[in-house]
């Protein structure tokens, strides 16, 4: 397992299910799978350049987790900081139709959605543990 901090950045997209899944998968990594060694960065704040986010991504490995194939998180990190150490496109994991489905409130989270979260977090962990 990686010893040093790793940044995991979700797009948190508001227009599709993939955005919700990206967010939940990153929170799961932070809270359950790799607590204490995982940092997340707020994507809008990262792009605004109003904090230490860009510096963090220059100095530490980051993994982008995007809800759709536009890959906003990955593109933003690579534009403003450095190449990502790994990237996840949820559309490629759960399929385009599901990924682009309506955004989900966490109060409507079903077992089916939780399985998607688990599937995505498992892919994040594969990258995580290779770093």
């Amino acid at each position, binding site marked *: 397992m990686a010893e040093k901090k790793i940044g995991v950045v*979700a*797009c*948190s*997209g*508001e*227009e*599709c299910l993939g*955005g919700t899944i990206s*967010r*939940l998968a*990153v*929170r*799961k990594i932070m*809270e359950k799978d790799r607590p204490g060694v995982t940092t*997340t960065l*707020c*994507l*809008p*704040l990262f*792009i*605004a350049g*109003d*904090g230490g986010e860009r510096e963090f991504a220059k100095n530490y490995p980051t993994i982008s987790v995007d809800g759709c194939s*536009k890959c*906003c*998180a990955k*593109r*933003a990190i690579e534009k403003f900081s450095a190449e990502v150490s790994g990237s996840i496109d949820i559309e490629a994991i759960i399929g385009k139709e599901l990924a682009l489905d*309506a*955004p989900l*409130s*966490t*109060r409507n989270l079903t077992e089916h959605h939780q399985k998607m979260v688990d599937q995505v977090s498992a892919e994040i962990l594969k990258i995580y543990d290779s770093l």
Partner: protein
Amino acid sequence: MSKVKVLPCSGIGKVLGLLARESVLMVTQDKCPDQTETLCLAQLVTGDDDVINRIKGQACITMDGCPKQCALKSVEAAGGQVAKSYKVADFMRAHRGEDHGTATALTEDGWNYAEELADKMVEMVNELRGEV
């Protein structure tokens, strides 16, 4: 009239970001689905042409989790007309001491507060549409 655009920051580090996100989803999915819509802030801030075209010159409401106000700044930068910007903390005084949950999940108090935030936004939507 075009749908009012309602955008949260969706900050991921604290419960404030989740409160912003969930309150906006209440507005756009449950309370005013025919009068409002949300747009993807990540696409907006990365300069996606489609989203920029949809927001330019349009009436917008933003709900930010922290004082950095990323949603407000991003909408303004993209040419959206911000009719009202809120911060989650704006109405917190009456809720001091409550546990609203985490950035992953809201508690019952958190859901109640999100509902209150959503109702504030609905009032503004109605005002913008001349329905009050």
